[in-house]
């Protein structure tokens, strides 16, 4: 038997084995992409550039964290982009009453949308994709109605500060995203809410028979996802220095789901990989950055993106032992 037993291998020098790649494929792909850029892209390994990448990816990470939770319950939330727009539209309307009330209104809107989604899924029993499709379509319309279709320049220094300020040299947006990632990881692994969510995603019937509050948890998950999306909308607005409900967050649902799935969380629910999700978002960000920096035309860029996604996920895919 040439193969070493796992116990023996543990002692030996660790080389990346297929199993290793499977578990850490996203991280490896991120590393490879960073390496590639370090060598082939001018001015890549500068503080300013890394900062740009992190700042740009932060809103995606925040949305993807919520999405990961939803996907963990075998659901999906298409309405996140519209929620971002809704949050953006609400900000200028309530900034007059102070930054805090504007923020609260924006987040509350996210919570309401999440509650509606959650109720449609958990109580009415709709399939998540149609339940959230309604607000995907209607949410942005509502945002545009609220904003009268207009882009509004934001001047509130407090809000703008969220987008531009640093704390200890780290941009506030990045800090928030980082803290949220840790928080969500904590919630998933260390709280009853998190463990119940995963169990419900894994086997809803069994979870119900084990007395878990299935409906409550599901609604809670969609609310969390909505609030996170709203927060992302606020931060993106602050970064843009304008409230732009017409384009803010378009295709965000796809980016977020992609980050989650590339990060190794199965769409079939029952597990949530938080760090993987963060790295999934980072991978997609770096990929886009690489293609832009090398000034590939859109056609080539899209095809290259397709190939790289496939390769990254192929390497990291779940292999069936047989």
């Amino acid at each position, binding site marked *: 038997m040439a193969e070493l037993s796992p116990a023996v291998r543990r002692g030996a020098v660790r080389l990346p084995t297929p199993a290793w790649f499977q578990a850490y494929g996203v991280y490896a792909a991120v590393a490879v992409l960073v390496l590639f850029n370090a060598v082939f*892209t*001018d*001015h*890549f390994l*500068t503080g*300013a*550039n890394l900062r*740009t990448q992190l700042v*740009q990816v932060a809103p995606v990470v925040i949305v993807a964290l919520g999405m990961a939770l939803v996907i963990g319950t075998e659901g999906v939330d298409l309405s996140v982009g519209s929620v971002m727009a809704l949050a953006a539209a609400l900000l200028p309307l309530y900034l007059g009453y102070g930054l805090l009330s504007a923020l609260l209104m924006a987040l509350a809107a996210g919570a309401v949308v999440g509650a509606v989604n959650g109720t449609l899924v958990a109580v009415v029993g709709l399939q998540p994709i149609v339940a959230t499709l309604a607000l995907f379509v209607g949410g942005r319309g509502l945002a*545009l109605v609220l904003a009268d*279709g*207009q*882009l509004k*320049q934001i001047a509130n220094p407090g809000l703008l500060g969220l987008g*531009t300020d640093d704390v200890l040299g780290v941009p506030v947006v990045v800090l928030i995203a980082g803290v949220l990632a840790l928080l969500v990881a904590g919630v998933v692994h260390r709280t009853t809410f998190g463990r119940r969510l995963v169990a419900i995603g894994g086997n809803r019937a069994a979870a119900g028979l084990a007395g878990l509050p299935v409906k409550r948890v599901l609604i809670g998950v969609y609310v969390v996802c909505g609030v996170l999306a709203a927060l992302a909308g606020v931060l*993106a607005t602050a*970064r*843009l*220095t*304008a409230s*732009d*409900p*017409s*384009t*803010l967050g*378009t295709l965000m649902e796809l980016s977020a789901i992609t980050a989650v799935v590339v990060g190794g969380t199965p769409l079939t629910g029952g597990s949530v990989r938080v760090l993987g999700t963060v790295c999934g978002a980072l991978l997609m960000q770096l990929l*886009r*950055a690489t293609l*832009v*920096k090398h*000034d590939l*035309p*859109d*056609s080539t860029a899209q095809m290259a993106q397709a190939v790289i996604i496939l390769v990254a996920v192929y390497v990291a895919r779940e292999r069936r032992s047989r």
Partner: protein
Amino acid sequence: KEEGSGSASPSSSEGAQVVQSPTAAADASGSGCTLQTYGASKLDLKDAVVGFSQSEKEANPFRIAETQSIKDEAAKLGVKKLLTTNAQSQLPKQISDIQDMLAQGAQLLIVAPLNSGGLEPALRAAAAKHVPVITIDRKINATACKDYVAFLGSDFVEQGKRAADQMIKVTGGKGKVAILLGASGNNVTTDRTKGFVDQIKAQAPGLEIVAQQTGEFARDKGQQVMEQLIQANPGITAVYAENDEMGLGAVTALKAAGKKPGEDVKIVSIDGTRNAVQALANGQYNGVIESNPRFGPLAFATAQKFFAGEAIPEDVIISDREYDASNAKNSLSGAY
């Protein structure tokens, strides 16, 4: 006659459209589309049902101003009923929009096409009912006076060319330019790129185009792409944005990167929205080529002339204004 007499009811408000070509002389020559050749029947707009098909959401200044101008003019003329639809950027929806309006009895159609190609079925349906179609702001690949009456609008290639001229002026013909492209596959993007690139090549070989990346006509995408480009090419000295929104996104990106937009990096864009002209007035911008969206008066005037039996030329090209540092402050009220 002075230029612009083509507009029958010159609007008192600032920023009204002015026809650039055909000039009055060409107009008088009588070549063009008439009621007889088109095969439509006479109509008094006051008793008419008019349909307007908008292509994209009224969620940017251009579309808002365009739709509003059509609505205002219809109200002003006392049109019996104005139907409006919005294709929400989906071509199939625009086709069904137009067909739906025909089914609801529209007798004149004003269409802002989403794309140069692909409206065939809608045009056929209109032709079957002998309903005249006037297209505004984008030209379509179809036969004038058969599939549609006339095209009213700007020349996008020309806009790109004029943007290049302004760029050459503000940069002195030297430096590195990044282009923020519009949405891929869109013929506005194609034309504005072609006009700009060709003119730069011909007139200012010293201006090197170092990057062409799409910002999808959106401010946040423009900002994100600019943030990437400025890191990769710190030597960029100029930005050509194919619409104002992306240009304004670039302003934010440049500021964040510690550059002074308007000084360290020159910015020229197309559209003429109020925000862009304001930025120009503030010195963060270097030039804006207008693309005038106020089609209401011109469209209805053209229709009236058409129904009155006059010949309408295939292309009615409006003259777009230019904003630069010198006129920005004064023209602000005319921007949309």
